């Protein structure tokens, strides 16, 4: 498999280089199809976690016949260990707005909404001012597109795209059945292209530099670079833009404290990788994909506590709509507590893994479906710590 050497890059936060109005004018001189082809050609995949090819998403939305369509920027960033979207919106919001406007032009939408999690309300005032300026700059150029700001109210599940639409429609944030997908029926049941904050910035970068220079970084399956949120037992916690496709051992060499026993890749809903697997683990869509969350644990940490924290998180954040997830999260949590206390035999962990497998198949949305990722990877690799 193609692997890369760890490499820090600086495209996302680079403010000197990017004159967003110039990028916008240059891009809007192209046709919608040309833009979509560029994005497809770049190989850009969504940076919010699921990794769907962005250009295809736009193409599907463009192909829908409807007078009303929407662009949505998903800024709900609730995955534990992720904090890059906040930093992007704080430091380079214009690049996000520009990506939204380009998307609007490409798919035929006149309105774009940023759904900002309530925990980031302190960004709102400044963001709204910059949005107002951006909107007036679009109006000056007779370009019919407007950006609006909406807020969440402390529900992780509203980062799931259909729950996000529900929330914007004044409903409980309960994920919908799919299909129909957002490209067909999203916000207000209209065709909607929903993109992560970081994805939209890369769109702006690709339109500025061309798909070739984006493709020059990363691997065949994971083009470009990505912003990582690094936390836990590291001397250098923070936000780093890194080339995709690096092996985890290099990441640990760079960011670990010399005693790294495990890395949780992709947040609470991601995978836990133990030391013995660092060399064989690629960070990217061909290996372990991540929305950017990289949590580092050293040997002083109890992996039981880590798993317990994650399960508590899911139990509280499950929307409760479907039984496998609502009851499953609670039972997994109770189950590991019982094993720890000795009320249940260690073999009970196998029953719990079956429950996690059922949740993966039977849950309605990504939340319930992904609980088995942390559960299995922690139980399998740190069984003793869960039991004793």
């Amino acid at each position, binding site marked *: 498999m193609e692997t890369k050497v760890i490499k820090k890059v600086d495209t996302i936060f680079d403010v000197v280089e990017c004159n967003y109005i110039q990028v916008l004018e240059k891009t809007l001189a192209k046709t919608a199809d040309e833009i979509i082809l560029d994005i497809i050609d770049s190989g850009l995949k969504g940076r919010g976690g699921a990794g769907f090819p962005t250009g295809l998403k736009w193409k599907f939305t463009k192909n829908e016949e409807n007078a009303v369509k929407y662009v949505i920027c998903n800024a709900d*960033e*609730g*995955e*534990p*260990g*992720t*904090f890059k979207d*906040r930093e992007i919106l704080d430091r380079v919001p214009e690049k996000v707005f520009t990506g939204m406007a380009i998307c609007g032009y490409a798919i035929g939408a006149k309105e774009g909404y940023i759904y900002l*999690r*309530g*925990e*980031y*309300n*302190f960004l*709102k005032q400044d963001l709204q001012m910059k949005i107002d300026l951006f909107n007036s700059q679009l109006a000056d150029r007779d370009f019919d597109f407007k950006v609006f700001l*909406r*807020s*969440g*109210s*402390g*529900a*992780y599940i509203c980062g799931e795209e259909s729950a996000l639409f529900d*929330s*914007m*429609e*004044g*409903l*409980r*944030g*309960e994920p919908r059945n799919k299909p129909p997908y957002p490209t067909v029926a999203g916000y*207000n049941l209209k065709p909607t292209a929903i993109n992560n904050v970081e994805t939209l910035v890369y769109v702006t970068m690709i339109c500025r530099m061309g798909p070739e220079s984006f493709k020059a970084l990363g691997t065949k399956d994971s083009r470009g670079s990505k912003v990582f*949120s*690094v*936390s*836990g*037992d590291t001397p250098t*916690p*923070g*936000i780093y833009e890194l080339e995709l496709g690096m092996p985890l051992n290099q990441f640990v060499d760079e960011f670990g404290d010399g005693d790294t026993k495990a890395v949780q890749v992709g947040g*609470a809903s991601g995978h836990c990788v133990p030391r013995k697997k660092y060399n064989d683990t690629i960070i990217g869509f061909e290996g372990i994909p991540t929305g950017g969350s990289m*949590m580092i644990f050293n040997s002083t*940490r109890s992996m039981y*506590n*880590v798993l317990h*924290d*994650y399960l508590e*998180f899911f139990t*509280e*954040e499950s*929307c409760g709509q479907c039984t496998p997830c609502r009851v499953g999260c609670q039972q997994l949590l109770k189950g590991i507590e019982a094993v720890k206390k000795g009320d249940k035999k260690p073999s009970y962990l196998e029953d719990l893994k079956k429950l996690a497998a059922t949740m993966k198949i039977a849950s309605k949305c990504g939340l319930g479906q992904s609980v088995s990722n942390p559960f299995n990877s922690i139980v399998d690799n740190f069984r003793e710590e869960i039991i004793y």
Partner: protein
Amino acid sequence: MSSTETLVKDLVSKYGKSRNSLMPVLQGIVQEERYLSEEAMIFIAKELDLSAADVYGTASFYTFLDTVPRGKNIIRVCKTISCHMTGKDLIIETLEDILKVKVGQTTHDKNFTLLTANCLGWCHKGPVMLINDEVYPELTPSRTTEIVEEYMKNATH
């Protein structure tokens, strides 16, 4: 008209008389009154042409849309893993000590409510808390005490 009714009317005229305005209207009430009273939810229902149960159904889903009375200042300490590792327990103890309440409770003078929250998005700078919309990262017990005392001073003046 009560002040709540006026507030609801103002918010509805600002955001528009449609269900899509429900979240911003609820958020606007919480911003001013810190929680959604029964009275407020009934006014909203009337103004947006929804049933009160419908309004309550939406409100009760969201952690930040409280339907029980809260203090003037709401403190939310992040309890998720990274902040757990950097010492959120000590911060919570410190707050419980100064405020003389447990997590989930409101002080007698109705000035503070102490709550915990899931990941606030500051894992590289934990422990962290929100007081209303303001964020306070990289907390230590003494820093926490200073911040809260500042809020206490402002409350009595």
